[in-house]
C-alpha cells in the first residue's frame, strides 16, 4: 500500500515525535522563542493568527518568506507553515524553504474550491484538517501524514473541536464491528478509498497520527481533546491572544502531558490571567465559518 511506503513512514515518523506535545501558532521570531521556551514541540508560522484573520477579513495567504525563514533560523524545534487549500505552488515554495511540515489549511483562503493538493510527490510531510472520518481518509489518500480536527479556528471555543474529534472516533468505532462484506458500502458512504476504510476497520484508528486544533484556549481544553482521542494539540490564537502568553503556553504544554491527572491540571490552570475572548459559534454567520472550507 502506498500509504505505508518508506517515504510515507518518514513523514509519519516526525508526527510520531510530536505526540503528547503542543504546536503553537507564531507570527514572528519573538513569539517563536516564547513558544520554544515554554516547551512547544513545534511552531506553526503564519502571517496572522486565525482570530485576526477572522476580524480583518481579506485574503489570507502563506506567510511572508522572510518571516518563516527568520523563525526557522531562531528556534531549534520543527517549524511548520500553512499553505492555502489546493495551492500546490505555495506548498512547493515552502518545500524549497525546507519547512518541516506543511499545513494545507482552511484557516487561509482556499485557492482551489474543488481540489486539494496532491501531497504524495512532496518529500515534505503535510498535515490537513478534517471534520469527520471520510474527510480525514480523503486527505490521507491524497498523502497527508497527519490529521488534525478542524474545530473552528480563531473562535476560542472548543465546541467544534470536540464535535469533530467525537465524530471521527465514533465513525472509526462503527467500522470495527462491520463484516468485510459491509465495508465497500461504508467506503461509499464515507466517500473514502476502500483500502483505507479496511485499514481503519481492522485497527480502530487512523493510519496516521490524529491531532486536534481549532478553539483550544485553556489547559483544560487541551486535556479535554486529548481525553477524547487527540494525540497532540495545535493552539492558534489561544496563546498569543491571551494577556500572558508565556504562562498560558507553559500551562498548555503541561496539560498535554498530564491530561489524565486532574491535580496536575489544577496546577496548570492556576494564575493564567485572562484568556482570549471567545465566540459563540451560533453567532458566526455561516459564510464566515472556516471549518467548511475544503471537503
Amino acid at each position, binding site marked *: 500500500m502506498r500509504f505505508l511506503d518508506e517515504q510515507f513512514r518518514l513523514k509519519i515518523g516526525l508526527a510520531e*515525535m510530536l505526540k503528547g506535545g503542543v504546536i503553537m501558532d507564531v507570527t514572528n521570531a519573538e513569539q517563536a522563542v516564547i513558544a520554544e521556551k515554554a*516547551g512547544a514541540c513545534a511552531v506553526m508560522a503564519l502571517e496572522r493568527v486565525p482570530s485576526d484573520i477572522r476580524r480583518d477579513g481579506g485574503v489570507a495567504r502563506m506567510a511572508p518568506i522572510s518571516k518563516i525563514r527568520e523563525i526557522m533560523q531562531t528556534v531549534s524545534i520543527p517549524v511548520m507553515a500553512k499553505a492555502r487549500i489546493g495551492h500546490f505552488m505555495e506548498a512547493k515554495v515552502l518545500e524549497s524553504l525546507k519547512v518541516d511540515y506543511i499545513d494545507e489549511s482552511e484557516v487561509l483562503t482556499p485557492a482551489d474550491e474543488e481540489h486539494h493538493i496532491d501531497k504524495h510527490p512532496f518529500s515534505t510531510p503535510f498535515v490537513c484538517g478534517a471534520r469527520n472520518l471520510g474527510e480525514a481518509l480523503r486527505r490521507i489518500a491524497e498523502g497527508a501524514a497527519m490529521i488534525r480536527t478542524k474545530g473552528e479556528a480563531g473562535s476560542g471555543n472548543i465546541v467544534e473541536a470536540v464535535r469533530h474529534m467525537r465524530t471521527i472516533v465514533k465513525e472509526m468505532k462503527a467500522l470495527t464491528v462491520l463484516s468485510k462484506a459491509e465495508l465497500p458500502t461504508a467506503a461509499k458512504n464515507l466517500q473514502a478509498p476502500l483500502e483505507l476504510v479496511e485499514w481503519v476497520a481492522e485497527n480502530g484508528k487512523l493510519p496516521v497520527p490524529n491531532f486536534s486544533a481549532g478553539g483550544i484556549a485553556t489547559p483544560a481544553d487541551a486535556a479535554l481533546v486529548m481525553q477524547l482521542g487527540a494525540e497532540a494539540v495545535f493552539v492558534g490564537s489561544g496563546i498569543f491572544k491571551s494577556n500572558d502568553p508565556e504562562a498560558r503556553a507553559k500551562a498548555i504544554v503541561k496539560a498535554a502531558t498530564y491530561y489524565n491527572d486532574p491535580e496536575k491540571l489544577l496546577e496548570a490552570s492556576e494564575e493564567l490571567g485572562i484568556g482570549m475572548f471567545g465566540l459563540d459559534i451560533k453567532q458566526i454567520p455561516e459564510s464566515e465559518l472556516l471549518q467548511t472550507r475544503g471537503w
Partner: protein
Amino acid sequence: MKRVGVLALQGDFEAHRKAVERAGAQAVEVRKAEDLDTIDGLIVPGGESTTMLKLLHAENLFERLREFGEAKPIFGTCAGAILVAREVRSPKQESLGLVDLTVERNAYGRQVDSRIVQLEGEAGTGLEQPVEAVFIRAPIIRHTGSDVRTLLRYNGDPVLVEQGRHLVATFHPELTGDARIHQKFLEKLDDSR
C-alpha cells in the same frame, strides 16, 4: 517479568511501549518521580528534547533521572540520546551527562533530510543481520569517550552505542517491527541486578 519504564512526557513513548512488549517485557509509562521506583530500566524516547527538558524541570524529575541512571540502565533514542549525553551542541543545551558523548542536534538537516537506511553491525554485536534505521531530524554523535563501545555506524558516525549499562541510538528502533535492539536493552536489565 522485567519492568521497563518509558518516559512519557512527550514524544513517541507509545511506540516504545509497544516495542518493549514485543521484546517480551512489561512497559510502564513514567510521568512522575514515584513512577521510577518500580522499574528496572528506563527508555527516554524520541520527541523534542527541549520540550522534555522543560517538563523534566517543571516536575523536579531532572535530578531524579540522573540518580536513576547512576544505578540502573537507561536507553535513549534520538531526543533521548541528546538528553543522556555529556555534551550537547547546536545549540548548546543542558543534559544528564550519563553517557560520555558529544551530540550535535539536527545534524543531518531538517525533515526533508530525514532518511531510512539499512545498517549492519560488526561480528559479535548481535546485529550482523541488517538493521533498518529510521533517522528523523536526528542528531549526530561527534565524539565518544573511551568507555563507549560503538555497535552500529552510519557514514562513519556512531549511531548505536553502549556505555556499561546504558544504550544510546540516534535513530528510532521503536518505529520498526525489529525487536533486537530493545532486546539488547532488556539484557542489560539482567546485568545490573
